[in-house]
């Protein structure tokens, strides 16, 4: 009787689910302690109202972008801590018994999932929010409220994926949770459900955000900005959001089917009763391969901006670059099978997908050549963003070579699921996406703060990163040749792998030191911001975002510019063109708490369905729907800023 009642109220949640081993509990409680400290701080300094008004309820994409980046940075630290644990376990060949195999498997599953979904995606959406509207001469995104919903769904997913540190356990099935291992038969616990629902909720946020920015780019460009006049970063974002719109529904459907298997005992992907795990593996990669390009194309865009600006020169081969982006966008949907050449599809199928894969190297190679040639006959200033660019070309080219190697099916048979593969995709994602994010961060930081980052610390951090990166991943390439597979919590010492694992561990420690310097760089830069104050255009920029105030007004542009050239701002400076101060009324979206409330109900829904608490599932779902209905029936979502008010603010800013 009692157990029945508790099952109705708490689902499968029991007190024992809160019991964890010391490492996990330590991480979990450290996170809670940090949260409590933040809450105490906010209360002590009476900042709750400020937090609610200027951040949580804000529909300003610049605010939302900053929040994305804050979440991504915190998750980067979590993912890095995971990596450190994995490396420690393998450097001691597992004999030290730091982690059990179960815990080890939870950690690598969490590491991969968090780094892709909550670090890389968070960075990309953060940068989209900050840069797309400002670069296309727009005051806002197409759907400001949707943008807030997207962010809070992302945040809800982030909370869910960290919850297993406190209650329950995480998936042990790897970052893509292949069935049948991820099915009830082999993973009956809550781990895979945590994985499914945190991704499902964050993934829907990503899809909505992709639609939002696609429409923003298509519909909200400044007058005169034809497609072929868009900054190349905007092109890369257009390609990336196109991929999001086509790929993320596949993820949603696939996770949906897996959850039906797990919740209702269906048989989409089970190994028996007519289910087919191969179907899942095809579907997840039909999303997963484009996902790689969703992440890396915006990074390409960032590097294109950086190399042109710091070479003081137009981007070389703009049209080629656009064609290459379009080609990669299309091709990225035709290569998914290269993730499982080893499934036995047959030589014809493998040949087709192998060749399609290597064809992607052509437009990618063109981009690399064009970036290098952008420096040709330029005046190259080696600031930190340029250092990241140089590091990126080196790592990305080597990683690309490894990628072409694995696109040849019989060669892939020897590399698949080995540490060679692990080294390859880390080279691409760290060397591509993360280095791109670091370059973009240093490049655009002064635009949104009014001061630059400390150059010296940035350079030191870069060199630590490069050295750490080489030490962390070259050993993994070699280990792959030695036959070391991924995800081993222990191995036979006689194989002679330990030395390489130790070197890799040292590499991660050096990377950690680099990250430490980056945090220090941020702190020092903020503390000494008055020494590093710069104007609106610190780098002699080329695109429109450098023409507006740093930090920008909440409406970005007091006067919407009319575009006549590619690199419009560069041309404006060349023509000594001055924007006439003809102010008009500006409509801005009002703040709303509906976004965060939707996120909260989504979080409740996710937690409830993971723990099979039926009544709470209903509460979450109904909550989301009612909140949306209330919000969508509200017609007064914008407020007017009169031309006179704009003029007054502008005057005040110019005096200051």
């Amino acid at each position, binding site marked *: 009787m009692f157990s029945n009642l508790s099952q109705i109220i708490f689902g499968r949640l029991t007190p024992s689910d809160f019991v964890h081993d010391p490492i996990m509990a330590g991480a979990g409680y450290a996170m809670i302690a940090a949260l409590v400290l933040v809450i105490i701080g906010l209360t002590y300094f009476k900042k709750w109202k400020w937090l609610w008004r200027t951040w949580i309820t804000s529909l300003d994409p610049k605010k939302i972008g900053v929040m994305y980046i804050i979440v991504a940075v915190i998750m980067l630290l979590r993912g890095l801590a995971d990596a450190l644990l994995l490396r420690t376990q393998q450097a001691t060949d597992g004999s030290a018994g730091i982690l059990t195999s179960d815990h080890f498997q939870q950690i690598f599953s969490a590491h991969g999932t968090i780094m892709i979904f909550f670090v890389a995606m968070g960075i990309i959406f953060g940068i989209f929010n900050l840069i797309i509207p400002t670069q296309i001469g727009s005051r806002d995104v197409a759907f400001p409220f949707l943008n807030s919903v997207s962010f809070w769904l992302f945040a809800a997913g982030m909370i869910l994926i960290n919850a297993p540190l406190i209650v329950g356990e995480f998936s042990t099935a790897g970052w893509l949770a292949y069935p049948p291992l991820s099915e009830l038969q082999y993973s009956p616990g809550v781990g895979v459900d945590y994985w499914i629902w945190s991704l499902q909720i964050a993934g829907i946020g990503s899809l909505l955000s992709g639609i939002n920015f696609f429409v923003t780019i298509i519909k909200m460009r400044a007058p005169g900005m034809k497609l072929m006049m868009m900054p190349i970063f905007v092109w890369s974002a257009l390609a990336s959001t196109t991929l999001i719109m086509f790929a993320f529904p596949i993820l949603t459907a696939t996770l949906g089917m897996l959850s039906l298997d797990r919740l209702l005992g269906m048989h989409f992907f089970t190994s028996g009763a007519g289910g087919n795990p191969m179907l899942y593996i095809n579907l997840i990669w039909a999303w997963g391969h484009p996902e790689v390009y969703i992440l890396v194309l915006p990074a390409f865009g960032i590097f294109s901006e950086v190399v042109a600006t710091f070479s003081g020169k137009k981007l070389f081969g703009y049209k080629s670059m656009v064609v290459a982006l379009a080609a990669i966008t299309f091709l990225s949907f035709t290569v998914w099978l290269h993730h499982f050449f080893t499934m036995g599809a047959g030589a014809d199928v493998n040949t087709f997908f192998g060749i399609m894969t290597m064809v992607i190297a052509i437009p990618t190679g063109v981009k690399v050549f064009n970036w290098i040639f952008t420096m040709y006959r330029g005046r190259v200033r080696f600031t930190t963003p340029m250092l990241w660019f140089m590091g990126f070309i080196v790592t990305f080219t080597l990683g690309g070579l490894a990628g072409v190697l694995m696109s*040849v099916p019989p060669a892939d048979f020897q590399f698949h699921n080995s540490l060679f593969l692990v080294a390859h995709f880390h080279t691409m994602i760290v060397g591509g996406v993360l280095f791109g994010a670091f370059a973009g961060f240093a490049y655009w930081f002064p635009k949104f703060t009014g001061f630059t980052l400390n150059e010296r610390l940035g350079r030191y951090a870069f060199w630590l990163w490069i050295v750490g990166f080489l030490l962390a991943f070259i050993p993994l390439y070699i280990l792959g040749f030695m036959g070391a597979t991924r995800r081993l919590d222990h191995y036979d010492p006689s194989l002679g792998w330990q030395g390489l694992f130790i070197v890799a561990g040292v590499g991660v420690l050096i990377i950690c030191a680099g990250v430490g310097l980056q945090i220090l760089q941020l702190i020092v830069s903020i503390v000494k911001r008055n020494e590093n104050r710069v104007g609106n255009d610190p780098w002699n920029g080329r695109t429109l975002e450098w023409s507006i105030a740093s930090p920008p007004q909440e409406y970005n542009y007091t006067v919407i510019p009319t575009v006549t050239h590619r690199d419009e701002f560069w041309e404006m400076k060349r023509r000594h063109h001055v924007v006439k101060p003809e102010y008009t009324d500006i409509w801005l979206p009002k703040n709303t708490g509906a976004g965060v409330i939707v996120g909260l109900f989504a979080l409740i829904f996710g937690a409830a369905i993971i723990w099979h608490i039926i009544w709470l599932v209903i509460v979450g779902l109904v909550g989301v729907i009612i909140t949306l209905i209330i919000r969508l029936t509200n017609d007064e979502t914008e407020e007017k800023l009169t031309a006179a008010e704009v003029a007054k603010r502008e005057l005040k800013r110019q005096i200051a």
Partner: protein
Amino acid sequence: MRKDRKRNFRRAGQAILSSLVAVIIVTVLVFVTHGRDIPVLNPHGLIADQERNLILLTVGLGLIVVIPVFIMLFSIAWRYRASNTKAKYQPDFASHKGIEALWWGLPCVIILILAIITGIYTHALDPFKPIDSSVKPVQIQVVSLQWKWLFIYPDQKIATLNYVNIPKDTPINFTITSDAPMNSFWVPALAGQVYAMSGMSTQLHLMADSVGSYTGSSANISGDGFADMHFKVNSMNESDFATWAKKTSIASQSLTSSSYDGLAKPSHDNSESAYVLGDGSLYNEVIMKYMSPDAEGSMNMSGSGM
């Protein structure tokens, strides 16, 4: 003048420091790699040997692009550094049809060559394709279990657990399935890997060219004890193999459907053992287990369902 000298001094310091770091990295890597077995590059079988050659060929082709990229990157970056005011500055030099045609063209040519090579080798090294040889092949059926490998020799009527003996210079025809989550069957010294999936039978053909003992493992995560799923492949002379097979077929415990069910239960035991094959159609039964309408493959599983 003085500023120049100071800058040159700093540059020299940086150059020395970075070369020193590079030397240290290389030395350390050589030290921890030296003398270790690198099966992918030092194979002992026909298939793995061809795969190694293919890998080296592909790397060679790739370097045709990679090396110029590195040379261009560093030479252009150095030549056009901002402090070198003698270099030409053309801020509007942003397209050149000839140059762009070159780097659309060059990768196209290399990829075309590589595509042809890929087509030929993918068919030649298809794991399902039998090896041409005058020697009669040995059939071995592989079942991945939680968390061990069962090898069934249908012709010799024996089975082994966590090790597999093969005659050298003889084609080995592996047919592979799983009675567990998906695994991947990989012996890097002999051939690349193929997935082991329940309800299905994949194939891998290989041939060892020397006597020796090689490590194989599962390359795909399959649950708690997955790291223990390694096994030895012992390649031996044909006569030794025949003697061993005969001895095993007499002096071992019997493997029947019912003793198989015990074996298939999840366990971390990685010990080696040998069996007389009591049930000749065991492999097919394992596959069929997943084919019947009500099957979850769960005859030997507890804790299924909510």
